């Protein structure tokens, strides 16, 4: 980290992100790790909006935003064209998108990028919903979470589905390096970015980035939230190299899921009478994540069956 910190900020402050934004912390770390010889293709979303409101830009690297769902494809075209022109030497390409741009609307383009084997680091900033449009549910929204399109009510306890397992979808494509990280551990995040960029071919890095207004916690708690997500095992932190889980973050003192859920308004309804079955399901998910072991990456987590 000390080494990375010496590098200048390539994502400059002065942007219009929310105070405490977990994504802004992570995005700045990504570029600190990557250095200045990168070209970034960015999907539509919070990150794009708060860093490039015309005529200002936070980016000290060449950066392009095209559409919501095509960052992986734009990056693919950049990589092949630069190689064809003989201008690829010493350049790294990063594609980055939110959870909606990755797991939902952009998954076709992402699959194409993986399958064709482009030399690109794809980063998913997962804040577990469509936060830029006002906290709607995505396929990476966790079970029980209140969003504006998965509201709790007389007939509902919030979001019904489990997080789509994008890291394993990447592994199934034969992606040689797949990892997860959070901004609570900058050293780990930076190491993973740098390691990924050393590897030829497609790389997938999945970052959990807490969202102050979307999750509903106090703005000084973003890093705490990211840490608790890992320490409760609701967000497992690991590395998968060539289909083998090579590293799983060891949690010295596992925390109960309630420690993570309670400070967040999106889970407040679960602590009312009747919410216990949903809490129990979240505990089960944490147990499944805690059981991830080193070795071949096979299915962990499961799709919730219909009631």
């Amino acid at each position, binding site marked *: 980290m000390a080494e990375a910190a010496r590098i200048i900020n390539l994502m400059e402050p002065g942007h219009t992100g929310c105070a405490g934004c977990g994504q802004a912390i992570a995005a700045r770390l990504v570029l600190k790790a990557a250095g200045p010889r990168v070209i970034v293709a960015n999907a539509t979303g919070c990150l794009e909006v708060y860093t490039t409101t015309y005529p200002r830009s936070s980016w000290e690297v060449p*950066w392009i935003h095209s559409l919501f769902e*095509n960052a992986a494809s*734009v990056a693919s*075209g950049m990589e092949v064209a630069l190689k064809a022109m003989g201008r690829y030497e010493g350049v790294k390409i990063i594609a980055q998108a939110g959870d909606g741009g990755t797991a939902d609307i952009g998954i076709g383009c992402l699959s*194409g990028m993986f399958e064709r084997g482009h030399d690109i680091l794809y980063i998913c900033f997962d804040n577990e919903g469509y936060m830029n449009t006002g906290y709607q549910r995505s396929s990476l929204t966790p079970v029980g979470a209140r969003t504006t399109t998965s509201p709790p009510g007389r007939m509902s306890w919030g979001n019904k589905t489990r997080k789509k397992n994008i890291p394993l979808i990447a592994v199934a494509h034969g992606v040689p390096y797949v990892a997860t990280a959070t901004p609570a551990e900058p050293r780990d995040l930076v190491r993973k970015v740098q390691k990924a960029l050393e590897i030829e071919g497609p790389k997938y890095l999945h970052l959990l980035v807490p969202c102050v207004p979307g999750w509903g916690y106090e703005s000084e708690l973003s890093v705490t939230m990211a840490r608790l997500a890992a320490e409760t095992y609701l967000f497992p932190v690991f590395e998968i190299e060539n289909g083998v889980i090579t590293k799983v973050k060891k949690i010295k003192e596992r925390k109960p899921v309630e420690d993570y859920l309670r400070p967040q308004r999106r889970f407040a309804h679960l602590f009312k009478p009747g919410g216990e079955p949903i809490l129990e399901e979240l505990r089960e998910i944490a147990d499944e994540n805690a059981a991830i072991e080193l070795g071949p990456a096979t299915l962990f987590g499961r799709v919730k069956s219909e009631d």
Partner: protein
Amino acid sequence: MEGSKAVAEAVRLCRPNLVCAYPITPQTHIVEGLSQMVADGRLEAGYVLAESEFGAASIVLGASAVGGRAYTATSSQGLLLMTEVMFNIAGMRLPVVMTCANRAVSAPINIWNDQQDAVSIRDSGWIQLFVEDNQEALDSHIQAFKIAEELMIPVMVCMDGYVLTHTLEPVDLPDQEEVDRFLPPYNPSYRLDPDEPFTMGSMVGPDAYMETRYHVHMDMMEARGVIERVADEFYRSFGRHRGGLVETYDIEGADLVLVSMGSLLGTMRDAVDELREEGLKVGILKVRCFRPFPASAVHDAIKGVGVVGVIEKDVSLGLEGTLCSEMRAAFCGEESPEISSFIMGLGGRDITIEEIKQVARDLASNPACRVEFRGLREELMKGDEG
């Protein structure tokens, strides 16, 4: 040479850095030809196999943004799937060149030729050139890269599916040195480069969005002059005048002018020759450039003519043929000829010389402005009554 092969050869001669497409009938022969050239080492370009037309359009966008010369081709559903990216490429001023092998749009699904696909995205900000034959297709692609890169506006060359893409005609294929002299390497004034970082595609609010659209519009208006000039340069380099905004045929002294775009013009020329023998003074206006719309060229070509029939293979449902509407707009504020819309040849329905002659004869006897479908099968029109 098959039309698709002629286009593939033209694209090869333009030395693209990246070719990317997704297969769709009737565009496939073009990209098959290009992929074979790459496989054989005749074309040194990156060739990307996209997972969809949406992906293909996004990939050529990325290639163009880093300063590469990029090409794609599609048809019909593929073009509509690309639509979001098409607007984006044009708005970001990236000079991509595309072939649209014109085909009908679903539903019902139909793989045959009409021009509904390209006409439906006329407002995307792409220059749209409609070609009549395979030589014009070949020549127009070479001109397209020059036009696009000079203006930083993408160009779509529209050629009728099957009628041109799958039909063999003799074509003159220029040699590489000739094309290299005409089309210099692409050297953009801006591109994504770590040595000179800049931000592309930023969020623009009400304070500046409208001005960016205004600039694109004004450059599109100016493109008309560039398209004409590039056609002249092409003539000087290759000895053929295949290009420009409009063409006329037998229009001198005509009482009645038939208007269309694309391969139908060949059939129309034959029909007009026969009509002239019958004593009907009929001329032809070929609209080659649909966007930017060459309003003054159209106006000047048919000024003083009393009756105009626009024959087109598309329909703006609930109004009339789209080209017909554009023709009317060319006479805004002036006394207009009677301009009628004839919707024909949708979904690959054949348009015969006799049908074209009948349109002219009917207009001669009754010039009143109207909208008609021609060539409908009576036995399928009974529908509800049966």
